[in-house]
């Protein structure tokens, strides 16, 4: 087993752990095992397929954080007073670290496996808990460094070594504080709800984070266009409630030698609060939290009143949209699976949100500098800017292939034992369910907003765009490898890559948009286009589902 550099570094502080009655050699061994396992966190099915690039997913995510770090680094170049600058920088850093903690480390924080394996052995709880805390902090610190590394360098050159030292030290404090806050948050949730609810909430926070990243990047360029407001500064009591001020104050104190009582008090808070939080975490939170964790794998089976109604509506929809009994069953199955698949939602929802905001992002880019709202509306109503909806179509059409992924992919063996002659009803039912559950609602929302902006007269165009979108969706389905729904793990990509799918979607949607645009100049052109597209779509629908079991790509089993 590898001896990690972090552990060697930790050895230097081993006396500290002995002081708080932690069995250091045992804790070190536990950490070593944990770190080794993290490096291997590759799904088992990959081990006998392609060559694995272990640890890569973590490094890849570090890269993403690095990009964000780039912007924070740039921010440091802005000639603001140091105190404001650090407030801003820490604001971003704390937000990111908190979000990462919730999205990536919840699994570690909420893990009861360690407890089950280690507690029957003669290891005391304090040692296990310290190992767990350190495990999280080590990773969180790595991520924090990749987010704030550039800012550190910029600060080092601009303000000298003292800056770098304070900065590094404060990052550790921030990590501890974040772990404390997150566990308090989870504890609160677990006190009121069961484990399933908590997992749902974590899932939504993860989704929000990805949406923030995806949409946020679109805006970051614009931040620098903002005119820098002149800031005036008066100390106020509520500043003491904002954590960023605590961490920003020492810079003012030590580098700008701004030794007013205000800064000294804030700097003290920066040291005292995280330390107190860590002590509190170790002594009070963990014992209570671990007790609550027992609830994690339980779910109160209260019958959902809404569920019965939902099932009825689903059945009615299934009866209307599907013809064979098998297809109906799969329609309903897919709808149920889609509402419960957390990992799938995590990938799907950001895409759907992106599809929703994309046209408006583009419009705001084009319109940008117009002065009044009425001006914009008049302009919009008379333009062909509603064609921006094709941007949504590109994304929506490409999402349908996602239903072949599932975290419960191992359950897919059931399809193959079923006495079905053809996989067509399975695929049809699943695809219909996906379109009804996600694509149609999102599209309706976009369409509604565009009708409000551009008037009722674009309704035929919106219908055309919808038909074209379904056409592209079917085309992608036909070109891609045939996979059963929920049949493979997320990490395994078969058939076309996500990039490839997006490219095809973009090309064909672009082509459709072009034809659409040209035909708007012809009388009844849009109607003609609708008839044409509908025809192609129907032919595609029949052709795409000419599939036998042999053509289906085998999933994980």
């Amino acid at each position, binding site marked *: *087993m590898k001896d990690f550099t972090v552990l060697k570094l930790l050895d230097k502080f081993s006396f500290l752990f002995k002081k708080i009655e932690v069995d250091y050699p045992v804790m070190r061994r*536990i950490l070593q*095992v944990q770190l080794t396992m993290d490096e291997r966190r590759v799904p088992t099915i990959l*081990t006998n397929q392609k060559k694995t690039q272990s640890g890569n997913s973590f490094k890849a995510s570090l890269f993403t954080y690095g990009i964000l770090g780039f912007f924070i680094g740039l921010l440091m170049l802005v000639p603001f007073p140091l105190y404001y600058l650090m407030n801003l920088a820490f604001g971003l850093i704390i937000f990111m670290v908190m979000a990462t903690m919730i999205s990536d480390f919840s699994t570690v924080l909420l893990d009861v496996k360690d407890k*089950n*394996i280690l507690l029957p052995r*003669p290891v005391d709880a304090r040692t296990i808990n310290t190992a767990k805390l350190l495990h999280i902090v080590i990773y969180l610190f790595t991520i924090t460094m990749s987010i704030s590394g550039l800012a550190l360098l910029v600060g080092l050159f601009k303000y000298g070594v003292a800056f770098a030292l304070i900065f590094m030290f404060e990052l550790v404090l921030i990590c501890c504080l974040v772990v404390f806050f997150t566990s308090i948050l989870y504890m609160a949730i677990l006190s009121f709800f069961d484990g399933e609810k908590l997992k749902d909430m974590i899932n939504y926070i993860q989704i929000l984070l990805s949406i923030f990243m995806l949409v946020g990047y679109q805006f970051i360029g614009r931040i620098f266009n903002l005119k820098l407001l002149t800031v005036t500064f008066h100390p106020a009591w509520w500043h003491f409630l904002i954590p960023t001020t605590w961490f920003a104050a020492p810079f003012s104190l030590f580098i700008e030698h701004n030794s007013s009582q205000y800064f000294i008090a804030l700097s003290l808070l920066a040291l005292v609060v995280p330390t107190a939080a860590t002590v509190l975490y170790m002594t009070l939170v963990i014992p209570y939290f671990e007790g609550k964790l027992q609830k994690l794998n339980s779910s109160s089976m209260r019958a959902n009143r809404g569920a019965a109604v939902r099932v009825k509506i689903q059945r009615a929809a299934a009866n209307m949209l599907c013809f064979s009994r098998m297809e109906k069953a799969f329609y309903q199955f897919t709808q149920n699976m889609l509402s419960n698949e957390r990992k799938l939602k995590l990938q799907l929802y950001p895409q759907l949100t992106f599809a929703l905001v994309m046209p408006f992002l583009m419009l705001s880019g084009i319109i940008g500098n117009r002065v009044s709202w009425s001006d914009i509306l008049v302009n919009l109503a008379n333009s062909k800017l509603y064609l921006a909806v094709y941007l949504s179509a590109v994304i929506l059409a490409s999402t349908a292939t996602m239903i072949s992924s599932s975290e419960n992919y191992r359950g897919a063996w059931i399809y193959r034992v079923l006495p079905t002659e053809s996989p067509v009803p399975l695929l049809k039912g699943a695809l219909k369910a996906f379109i009804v559950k996600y694509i149609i609602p999102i599209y309706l929302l976009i369409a509604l907003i565009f009708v409000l902006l551009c008037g009722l007269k674009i309704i035929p165009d919106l219908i055309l765009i919808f038909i074209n979108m379904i056409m592209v969706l079917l085309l992608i389905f036909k070109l891609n490898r045939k996979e059963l729904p929920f049949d493979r793990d997320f990490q395994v990509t078969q058939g076309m890559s996500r990039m490839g799918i997006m490219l095809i979607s973009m090309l064909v949607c672009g082509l459709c948009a072009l034809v659409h645009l040209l035909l708007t100049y012809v009388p009844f052109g849009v109607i003609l286009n609708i008839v044409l597209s509908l025809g192609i779509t129907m032919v595609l629908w029949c052709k795409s589902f000419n599939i036998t079991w042999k053509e289906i790509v085998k999933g994980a089993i």
Partner: protein
Amino acid sequence: MIMNINISFMVIKAGDTMNTKGEAVVSIRDLAMSYGTHQVLRGINLNVFQGEIIGYIGPNGAGKSTTVKIILGLVDGFKGQVKVLGEDIADGGIEYKRKIGYVPETAEVYDTLTAYEYLTFIGEMYGMEFKLVDQKAQKLMALFDIADMYHARIASYSKGMKQKLLIISSLLHNPDILFFDEPLSGLDANSVMVFKEIMTDLAAQGKTIFYSSHIMDVVEKISSRIILINNGQIVADGSFDQLSQKCREGSLEEIFNQLTGFNRHKEIADEFIAVLGEA
């Protein structure tokens, strides 16, 4: 009628003969435990002595695993007193755990590790020398016929191999008290024979074994004392011979049925078949 018989059997005590064997290895007094409003254990009283193989049986949800988890310190919040080797476990000491080996029913392992890495890690948690654990682990793996898997990741193991690994990991440190919860699951017939032999020998050496299982014939054959727990209470306690005399039943399975008040198996099976035939 059945109900009456049940009440008269509420506690079949093996008698005071047991108490003459010296101090109890595990002693449980008025142990009660509830999850929320659901009461799992309602006053368990039990003394276990050195060298006993205890067949710890009961219907699903009777509280068997909970008892074991409490003894091992996996579950907090119980009422009553549990002493292991004279040490009260509520005192928070961990030393007694050095003397315990445990095979849980649904076991979690770090399955991205290899057996070599996992077993040496576990051994070191008991304070053993790395080299010694390594040697012992290798030999034990070889005896269980999975020597070639020693450096393979546990994730690639079959169910039986994983079970063998768990058994080895529970015995590496040569403990005095063993808790086996369905230890045979997934093992092939030959390995089962080896393992039963191991248990008998361990008991002969003076080790104490808690054996929990739903397979009654095995429990009947290997246990020196059987404890039946139902609804969080001990309803029978004694050797198989004592129990079969008192219950006038020939097999442990029948005793189990009788004491848990279950006699509808035929009826239920008939109904089940009838439902299958419904068109």
